[in-house]
């Protein structure tokens, strides 16, 4: 195990010690011990920056299941490293924040940090695995740990609902992704992502290309909360705020983006890839921002905002695929889309993390997150307010923050579609900048709303559950660091250009890099009077106008009834599928044995008749039949008549007697067919069973002794005739088809020489095939013991006129 593997698994290895630290060291907040892990990891991963910026990669392999081609291959390139740094960096800040956010005496911190560490390992595993099966394993581990974290306050009903919803949706996507992985493996013959990238030509020509792509994308879309799977994210806000900040804004929801970026080299030659991702991402961006405006909960706004921003990055990753269709890198205008995606990914992690922590502080200090109750907090919480303003303005895409830069690049990438001349980008593609513009307008509105509604306006402190005051310094450290990053990246964006962004972009375009082309990342404020600048001005103007006139148009949100919203559809599907499953089950699981017998018999006949017809086996001849003696006719008629007569008897007593007639008739048949042993046994057994029948009849409750003829039911008659015909047909056919001679010749020849006996039946029973007999007598013994225990060891003794009797009679009717 290399150091790299150890680093990936370090949080998981540390997790088992957490409960002991929590129980043993009550006086110290457990978070301090946990904090060591991400801090160590972030410094370790920072050490890789020189390696990746030089264009090198690090690969370490542990054989796990080599025979299946599943090995734990850790692979560090620009993209992985960027994510690993985000995970560990934000992880450290979130752990620090949680130390002040979660009370060590009231919360079960042991659980919290175990889940969090589990998640951290899982996330590192996702971004650093080269083997797709291993990646899938970590992927599901993120789903599970996220489920546990959302349901952390499991006494709350909303928490459980949110946890279940996110679990169902992300696991649905995860399983689809597994299907995609298996398909890709079948095309390439390897689970390694690098092998898939190297063989992208093979994959592109495969008939399953589209299926594999859609399955992989389903995984990415559900995880990254893209339309229409975004609905789990707002409900996941029931988690503690550090969790929301960490999982549901900075890391886990970006796993889908990571997957799309990682798989881009495999799929991006295809126009379907570009269009699916760009369209879904763009619409998600619009829909998320549109819905964020109507939220009244701070974290609700942030959740929809996250959805929107993820959509933005997703669409940029889609548009980035267009870069492959240009030859020269210098005028390769679409590379800017990918650069923007990576840059915005970093920016979003910084400002969204700080905003979530801000929301947590407001919640913690005032007792509510409802923006209708909040207001005027600016004076009492100045630092939090500053953080909120910086974060919100960066999110809205205003200068001088980093959000402005990436938003400009986003608008630039979308306007580039005008100059493209492939994939119908120049025609339908016009929709992209339009939707992007509208989405940006709503983004502007909710960003402004976020801090004006919370911190400005009139103060209503008397209505708040707690008296508000500034948060403790420890809680402010993390958001302040993030806000400083927001500002710092805004002013000095090129700090990261060559260290983080360029290697990440290069790993998305391995083919371009292989051609010796160089990705140039140069981010600066002033582009000149470009279309995107006009668009930004337009966003600010239109956004301000709409924000000012907000009360007039808010009504449109109430137009959509709950049933037609996606949440309504989700809830409805759950309820409906549950009901449908019950109804389906109730329809055939009637509880009546006669229904089950009908299924069994109909299935039996159906299968038999179908296979007779399907394999064209229908043939029989009477050639090898023996002569039928007259007395056999007579006996056959007697047996048939007796059997038929049972059906028409009014009372059960004659039925039992007639059954005896059939049995003795069969014994006589044995006599005719030369089977004395069988005849003897049949006679005695028939006698015993008739006696037992009579005994049962004697003890039957009086009411069911009533003399009624069996009711005629057409269905039953048809099934009975069907089964009879089937079995008869089969027996005739079996006789006709008999192709091998019987082994009885051997028995006849050797019965005396080998077994010193002359009664062949008995010799077979005790000698040739004594093993069967041994177990038949065991069966008899079990039956006797069963009867003995059933009768002797009744725990409840039935008394006369007891309820049990009556209940039995009622079910009979």
């Amino acid at each position, binding site marked *: 195990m290399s150091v790299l593997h150890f680093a990936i698994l370090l949080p998981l290895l540390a997790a088992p010690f957490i409960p002991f630290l929590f129980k043993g060291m009550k006086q110290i907040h457990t978070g301090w011990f946990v904090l060591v892990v991400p801090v160590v990891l972030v410094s370790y991963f920072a050490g890789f920056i020189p390696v990746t910026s030089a264009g090198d990669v690090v690969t370490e392999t542990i054989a796990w299941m080599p025979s299946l081609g599943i090995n734990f291959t850790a692979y560090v390139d620009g993209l992985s490293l960027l994510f690993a740094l985000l995970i560990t960096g934000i992880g450290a800040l979130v752990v620090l924040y949680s130390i002040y956010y979660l009370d060590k005496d009231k919360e079960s911190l042991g659980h919290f940090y175990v889940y969090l560490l589990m998640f951290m390992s899982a996330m590192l595993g996702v971004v650093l695995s080269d083997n797709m099966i291993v990646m899938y394993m970590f992927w599901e581990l993120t789903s599970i740990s996220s489920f546990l974290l959302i349901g952390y306050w499991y006494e709350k009903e909303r928490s459980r609902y949110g946890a279940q919803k996110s679990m169902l949706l992300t696991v649905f996507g995860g399983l689809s992704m597994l299907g995609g992985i298996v398909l890709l493996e079948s095309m390439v013959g390897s689970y390694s992502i690098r092998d898939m990238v190297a063989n992208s030509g093979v994959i592109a020509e495969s008939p399953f290309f589209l299926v594999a792509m859609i399955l992989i994308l389903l995984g990415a879309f559900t995880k990254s909360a893209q339309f229409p799977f975004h609905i789990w994210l707002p409900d996941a806000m029931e988690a503690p705020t550090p969790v929301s900040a960490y999982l549901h804004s900075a890391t886990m929801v970006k796993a889908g983006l990571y997957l799309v970026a990682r798989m881009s080299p495999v799929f991006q030659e295809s126009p379907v890839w570009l269009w699916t991702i760009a369209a879904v991402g763009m619409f998600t961006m619009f829909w998320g921002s549109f819905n964020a405006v109507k939220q009244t909960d701070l974290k609700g706004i942030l959740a929809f905002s996250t959805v929107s921003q993820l959509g933005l990055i997703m669409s940029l990753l889609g548009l980035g695929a267009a870069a492959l269709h240009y030859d020269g890198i210098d005028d390769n205008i679409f590379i800017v889309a990918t650069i923007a995606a990576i840059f915005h990914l970093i920016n979003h992690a910084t400002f969204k993390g700080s905003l979530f922590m801000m929301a947590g502080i407001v919640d913690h200090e005032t007792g509510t997150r409802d923006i209708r109750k909040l207001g005027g907090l600016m004076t009492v919480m100045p630092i939090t307010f500053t953080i909120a303003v910086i974060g919100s303005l960066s999110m809205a895409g205003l200068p001088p923050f980093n959000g402005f830069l990436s938003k400009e690049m986003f608008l630039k990438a979308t306007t580039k579609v005008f100059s493209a001349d492939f994939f119908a980008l120049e025609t339908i593609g016009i929709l992209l900048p339009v939707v992007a513009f509208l989405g940006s307008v709503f983004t502007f509105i909710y960003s402004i709303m976020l801090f004006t509604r919370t911190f400005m306006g009139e103060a209503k402190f008397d209505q708040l559950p707690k008296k508000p005051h500034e948060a403790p310094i420890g809680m402010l450290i993390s958001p302040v660091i993030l806000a400083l990053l927001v500002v710092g990246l805004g002013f000095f964006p090129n700090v990261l250009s060559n260290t983080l962004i360029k290697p990440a972009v290069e790993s998305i375009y391995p083919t371009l890099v292989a051609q010796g082309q160089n990705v140039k990342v140069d981010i600066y404020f002033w582009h000149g009077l470009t279309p995107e600048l006009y668009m930004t001005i337009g966003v600010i103007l239109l956004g301000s106008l709409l924000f000012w006139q907000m009360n007039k148009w808010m009504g449109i949100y109430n137009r959509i009834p709950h049933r037609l919203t996606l949440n309504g559809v989700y809830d409805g599907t759950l309820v409906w599928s549950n009901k449908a499953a019950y109804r389906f089950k109730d329809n055939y699981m009637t509880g009546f044995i006669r229904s089950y017998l009908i299924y069994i018999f109909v299935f039996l006949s159906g299968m038999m008749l179908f296979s007779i017809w399907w394999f064209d086996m229908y043939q029989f001849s009477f050639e090898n039949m023996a002569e039928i003696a007259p007395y056999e006719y007579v006996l056959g008629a007697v047996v048939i008549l007796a059997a038929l007569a049972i059906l028409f008897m009014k009372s059960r007593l004659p039925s039992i007697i007639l059954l005896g007639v059939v049995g003795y008739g069969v014994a006589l048949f044995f006599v005719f067919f030369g089977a004395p042993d069988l005849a003897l046994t049949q006679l005695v057994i028939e006698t015993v069973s008739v006696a037992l029948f009579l005994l049962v009849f004697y003890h039957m409750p009086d009411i069911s002794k009533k003399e009624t003829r069996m009711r005629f039911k057409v269905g039953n008659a048809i099934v009975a005739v069907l089964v009879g015909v089937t079995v008869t047909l089969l027996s005739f056919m079996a006789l006709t088809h008999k192709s091998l001679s019987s082994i009885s010749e051997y028995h006849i020849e050797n019965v005396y020489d080998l077994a010193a006996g*002359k*009664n062949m039946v008995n*010799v077979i029973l*005790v000698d040739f095939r*004594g093993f069967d*007999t041994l177990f038949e007598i065991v069966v008899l*013994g079990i039956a*006797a013991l069963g009867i*003995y225990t059933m*009768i002797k060891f009744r725990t409840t003794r039935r008394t006369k006129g007891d309820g049990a009797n009556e209940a039995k009679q009622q079910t009979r009717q």
Partner: protein
Amino acid sequence: MKQNSKRVNDVILQTASIIIFFIIVIFSINLFFAGHYSPGGGFIGGLMTSAALVLLLLAFDSNTLSKVLPIDYRLMTATGLLIALATGLHSLFFDRPFLTHAYGKFDLPLLGEQTLHTAIAFDLGVYLVVIGVTMTIIQTIGESE
């Protein structure tokens, strides 16, 4: 089987049963021993013996029968199973597969030269099990209320 509330004087039945009982038992033993050469064997022999016992049950009551023949039929079943199993197992000691029978001619003191076959031991197991099972069932059902 079901005990009558008032005693019935059935001398003829009882007297006849006692005689017939021995005939049936001897017949059943014959069936059992003849099994390897002519129709019969452990199964039918066991059934016949239990039929004889049932006849006694019909003529007398179960208390009388258990006094005359103090047999635990469940133990009998177990013994039968054990004998059958042991017959199967014995061949393992002679390095043969499970349930390989052995036979040979022996000069017995009173009976003269006779063929002895381990299959008869196996059949004895079957015989005992069948009697044990039949009688357990009939006794249990008969004694229950």
